[in-house]
């Protein structure tokens, strides 16, 4: 039985509290893949927005940036399993993202 903290101390959960707790764990687990995909889309959006200015008429977007942006756009269709999401979201020890797709190319 899971324990719960109250102003009067720590005690075991009641049956109803445990059921609510279990439901919460299930919701989290069931949404795992969609949560990771949302995270990938958020990271992608950050990077696309950071290079949007290169599409202005007075700026020439380098081909390697065009290629990178297209690869970012294609991430959801080219990565469809939770295992692939995990690979994309893997982090280094300093919490930075490990996969090279998240780093803007320089040429």
């Amino acid at each position, binding site marked *: 039985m899971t324990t719960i*903290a109250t*102003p009067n101390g720590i005690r075991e959960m009641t049956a*109803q509290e445990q059921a*609510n*707790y279990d439901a919460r764990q299930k919701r989290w687990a069931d949404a795992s893949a969609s949560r990771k995909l949302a995270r990938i889309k958020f990271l992608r959006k950050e990077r696309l927005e950071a290079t949007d200015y290169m599409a202005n008429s007075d700026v020439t977007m380098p081909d390697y940036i065009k290629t990178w942006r297209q690869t970012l756009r294609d991430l959801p269709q080219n990565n469809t399993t939770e295992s692939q999401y995990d690979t994309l979201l893997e982090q280094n020890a*300093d919490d930075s993202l490990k996969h090279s797709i998240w780093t803007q190319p320089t040429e």
Partner: protein
Amino acid sequence: MSKTTIPKGGITADAIDATLIADNAISEEHLDATAITASTELAATPADTDEILISDAGTLKRIDFSHLDASKFKQVATLNVTSDQGALTFASCFTSTYKNYFVVFSDLKVATNGADVNMLFHYGDSNGNDSTNHNYSFLRRYPSTTAGANEGNANDIKFLQAQKSGAGRFAHGTMYVFNPLSTTDGITAGTILSNGNTNDGTGAQMTVLSFNMPESGSNSAYTGFQFSASSGDIQGQITVYGIVNPS
């Protein structure tokens, strides 16, 4: 008329009682500091009905401590746990004594890396009776970006996203709760300001969030609330203050 000097040794100890001292005769020069320092120490916040001596424009009067306590935030409940728990919960901290409440939370730690930190209300004085519909809007600042969104009828109110676990990873913040007992005179609402270590990249996250409860009035009044992690357990310190109603 000649005066007779009574030698000190001629008066028995404690012989002078209150009836022999003239009215208004005890002035400051006859009062020693030991009247205070030698008295028993209270060593606690005085009760509302404890009394203090005061000069009211030159007239000595007694006054209840309640009249001197100017604090407008009154602690009504607190908990502090440094071990992982399924939830941090207050079943019945909201009462008719106060209409609005202020909550301080600190040192919140999630056991599951990347879990969200959530809040929901209890009703009917029971931790098991949880609110299930929550409307809220938030602005969340990550280390390098800002995200915002609206949530309607969510299972709970997510006030920190993807909190990082481990040593030194804490979340802190404050929450106002307005009108939690309301069933007829307006909706329950509130605001949350929070800071934490995010798992979404390096650094900190800050969230500004406003919520209301669409089910206010359909359930009985909200009598308490709960903090939990979206996955796994949580620990931390939470204190609830009632905000003294305007006089």
